[in-house]
């Protein structure tokens, strides 16, 4: 009996150690929280039209740690909520002395003109950049970030667009860092972003 108990204890210790080692490895891989996924595959070059009407590339837009969201302005609920959340996270980080960018990329170029995306983004954060483009430019940017969008059938003025709701955190040098789901709070976004800034600084 004694040896059985001993064996079990050893097993438990070993299992515990295994979990500890696994957690330690995991922590090394994702030190900033469980929203992190393996990098490299998401993001990359894009060419879009800025809210001042100029053609811009990812290098022009991502000049600091940046939160990127793909949405459309004819969307009275989800897109404003998510965009608002990102703006709040930016304000929270600003209060901590951390400067990040926020970007809204339209997936509805027929309706989201330069003026419309500019007004939409200014409503949430004075420094938020609104981007639109030709249908081809928007499609290429969306594909780079592996986002989905599809315009529903309907009236040309009133149609709805199905779309992904993740927000991406990207850095100028290293690119994609992590993504946020729409149920992440402004605090969670700010905290995780600050962690990545700390890591990559």
């Amino acid at each position, binding site marked *: 009996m004694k040896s059985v108990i001993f064996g079990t204890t050893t097993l438990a210790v070993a299992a515990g150690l295994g979990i500890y080692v696994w957690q330690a490895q995991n922590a090394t891989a994702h030190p900033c929280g469980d929203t992190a996924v393996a990098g490299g595959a998401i993001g990359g070059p894009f060419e879009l039209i800025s809210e001042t009407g100029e053609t811009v590339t990812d290098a022009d837009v991502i000049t600091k740690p940046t939160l990127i969201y793909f949405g459309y302005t*004819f969307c009275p609920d989800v897109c404003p909520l998510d965009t608002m959340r990102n703006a709040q996270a930016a304000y929270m980080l600003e209060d901590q002395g951390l400067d990040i960018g926020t970007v809204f990329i339209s997936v509805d170029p027929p309706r989201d003109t330069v003026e419309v995306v500019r007004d939409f983004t200014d409503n949430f954060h004075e420094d938020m950049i609104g981007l639109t483009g030709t249908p081809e430019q928007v499609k290429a940017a969306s594909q780079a970030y592996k986002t989905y969008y599809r315009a529903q059938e309907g009236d040309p*003025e009133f149609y709805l667009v*199905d779309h992904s709701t993740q927000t991406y955190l990207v850095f100028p040098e290293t690119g994609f860092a992590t993504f946020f789901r729409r149920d992440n709070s402004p605090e969670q976004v700010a905290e995780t972003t600050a962690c990545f800034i700390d890591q990559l600084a």
Partner: protein
Amino acid sequence: MTKLAALAFLTAIGTAASADMQIADIRAFETAPTAMAGGGFMQITNTGTTDDRLVAVEADFPRVELHSHDFDSEGIARMIHLEDGIAVPAGETVTLEPGGLHVMFMGLRGSPLVAGETVDATLIFEEAGPVPVTFDIVKRDMQHGHGHSEGHNH
């Protein structure tokens, strides 16, 4: 404005009632100047004994629809036009709130929703009939889905 004043006099702004329907927290968010759509929200309580259904909302916009959202496991949002309206069973409260059910005012066409102003509308119920309501247009940083209200005056 006379009409608004009269409404304000008759019912406290933000609430409305018919025999069986109590409507509270009636609000819409301000929009950007060039926005083409805005969302309206409220809480509907059916105090009667008959199941009812909100079948339409009438307001002075090219189109007004009732919508809900569906989110799949990939995080893709699909907005759904509720052509059959929203069921309001007897004795129950249905909440139209950010991220869920909402009224969509479509085709603003240069007439954005401005905080401090109001939108007059009529809720059409299958049983209770028309119920006039007034949506208070509020700023987004006062009320949003995550429960924080620290304002930033940048």
